[in-house]
């Protein structure tokens, strides 16, 4: 292995005047080349080191979400790391424990819900981007049937499923989205079976949220149907013809700002959240199946979301059993990431 999991401690050097390397540590829950969740974080870190050449990056992969994570963080701090990115949801409590012991080290956790004086959190709201991807899917489908594969019906994901359907419906009133839950974040064979089942049922655009959507996108390409990716834009290579677009996290600029502010002591502990208006995430480059008109529709919708003229969850909104979930005149916002337990009208599927 090229990357060391447990690098040996390096003895503390006396500080040279200026030109000093600053160390930043990052923990990954999986492999950094998974074309998914972990690669998106890794690419952001690399972009950060390019923007800040005096930063030296220490990465650890496949770190379990347990006390092992604490030991890896302690080790990185012994090596001199001043900023730590514990990049999985389950590292929150281990990071809080380590943060308490090292008040001079800054911790930045993705999507965490707790703060400490030296631990802040950040995340990108993905449902706006999923709405825009839904526009591409709604325009691309000829059967008016879209498919969505994911592991578990958790609020964050159901909000994305709903936004995807609403985006598609905004350009194609007849469209439906079929939700398939396969009960596993990582099970490539089951993901392939799910896409095959969707294709058999006449669905011609699939998307999904699993740790590494490579199998989804690749199987869709083999079946000759279209796909929308998630997490990382590195997915596009797996579907040269059927690729429409995808929701891609672009953490580089944020990481650069965070590390810079930690180094010049202007960093403060807070919950940073950004949507499509921020530089946290973007739509991945369009594939050949997205024509210029559709691209313009998407760009217009994006501009309206940013300006506030378009609210994706503006009522009246019914769920798929006909119950009104958001009344006329009201609108759902970012709280839906934590509260959505229903599927919007036009989504075919079960949440329990």
């Amino acid at each position, binding site marked *: *292995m*090229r990357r060391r999991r447990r690098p040996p401690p390096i003895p503390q050097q006396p500080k040279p005047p200026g030109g000093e390397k600053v160390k930043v540590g990052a923990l990954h829950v*999986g*492999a950094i*080349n*998974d*074309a*998914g969740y972990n*690669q998106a974080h890794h690419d952001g870190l690399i972009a950060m080191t390019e923007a800040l050449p005096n930063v030296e990056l220490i990465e650890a992969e*496949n770190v379990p979400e347990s006390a092992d994570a604490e030991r890896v963080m302690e080790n990185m701090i012994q090596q001199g790391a001043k900023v730590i990115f514990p990049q999985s949801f389950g590292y929150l409590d281990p990071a809080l424990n380590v943060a308490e012991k090292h008040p001079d080290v800054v911790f930045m956790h993705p999507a965490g819900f707790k703060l400490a004086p030296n631990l802040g959190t950040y995340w990108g709201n993905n449902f706006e981007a999923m709405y825009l991807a839904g526009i591409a899917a709604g325009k691309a489908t000829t059967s008016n049937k879209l*498919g969505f594969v994911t592991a578990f019906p958790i609020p964050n994901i159901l909000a994305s499923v709903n936004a995807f359907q609403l985006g598609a419906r905004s350009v194609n009133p007849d469209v439906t989205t*079929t*939700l*398939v*839950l*396969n*009960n*596993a974040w*990582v*099970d*490539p*064979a*089951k*993901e*392939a*079976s*799910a896409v*095959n*089942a*969707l294709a*058999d*049922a006449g*669905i011609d655009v699939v998307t999904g949220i699993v740790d*590494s959507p*490579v*199998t989804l996108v*690749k*199987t869709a390409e083999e079946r000759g149907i279209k796909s929308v990716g998630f997490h990382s834009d*590195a997915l596009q*290579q*797996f579907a040269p013809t059927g690729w429409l677009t995808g929701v891609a996290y672009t953490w580089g600029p944020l990481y650069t700002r965070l590390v810079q502010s930690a180094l010049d002591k202007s960093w403060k502990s807070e919950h940073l959240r950004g949507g499509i208006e921020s530089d946290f995430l973007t739509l991945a480059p369009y594939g050949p199946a997205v024509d210029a008109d559709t691209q313009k529709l998407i760009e217009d919708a994006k501009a309206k979301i940013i300006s506030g003229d378009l609210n994706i969850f503006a009522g009246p909104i019914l769920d798929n059993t006909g119950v009104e979930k958001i009344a006329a005149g009201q609108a759902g916002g970012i709280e839906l990431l934590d509260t959505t337990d229903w599927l919007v009208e036009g989504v*075919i*599927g*079960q949440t*329990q």
Partner: protein
Amino acid sequence: MLVGALQAGTAVLYAALGEVIVERAGVINLGLEGTMLMGASVGFAVTYQTGNPWLGLIAAALAGALFNLVLAFLVVTRGANQLASGLALGFLGIGLSALIGRPYVGQLIEGLRNVPLPILADIPFVGEVLFQHDVLIYAVIPLAFFLQWVLFSTRWGLSIRTVGEDKTVAYAAGLRTQWLQYQALFVGGLLAGLGGAHLSLAFTGVWGEQMTSGRGFIAVALVIFAAWNPLRAVLGAFLFGGALAFQLQLQARGAPVSPFFLDMIPYLLTLGVLIFLRGNRKFAMPAGLKTVFEGMR
């Protein structure tokens, strides 16, 4: 759905067929999950490096076989506890395959292609279901018939079964019992390696850590389900694959059933058959296996 059953059941079937041979020789390999994963990762790595999925297949089979030989050394030569050795090796396989596969996560390969058989593939319905697959799927049912013949109609099969029934009697009859158990584990490993390779090289075309997600353990259960009979293993594996594909198909067609319930179907089926088989002497396990559980050698 039938296509889905074939696709989802094939990997499990290869592993189960291998395990039938192994258990017929009086050894139980609870580490089958690790053996499959070794096949999946080594097969993928070799295919990526050489660009040739056939070399990948050969490498996958050999990796599985070599991995099983480690178990053979432990339990046959050293007389270690089979259950503990099998489980420990299984987890070793999970870790080792992740280490080997590490550089290949998210990489693109030209895997095994589907090969529609000429003429046959054009038959309506039947052609689509049966004759548009990759070679591993075509080969698996003839392989089951072949193993059935080997086990029950050849001298080698008789020797293997004798060793599995009673090692002492087999030894007294002049059989080289340890050598035969090594052979059985080697063959079982070859097949489990191919099963793993079907997942990474043919069905998904990607390598992912622990991508077998318990299929190795299901294969062990299927051997009991199949009452140590290769042809019944075919039935069991495709029932399992069918149930798995069926629940995804139901969801894809919008059936109003809880996906969590649907996910239990393959396992409920397995349990049901186990109840049904209980107490029928025709389906009894090789007598030698009992010593594994009773702690005698």
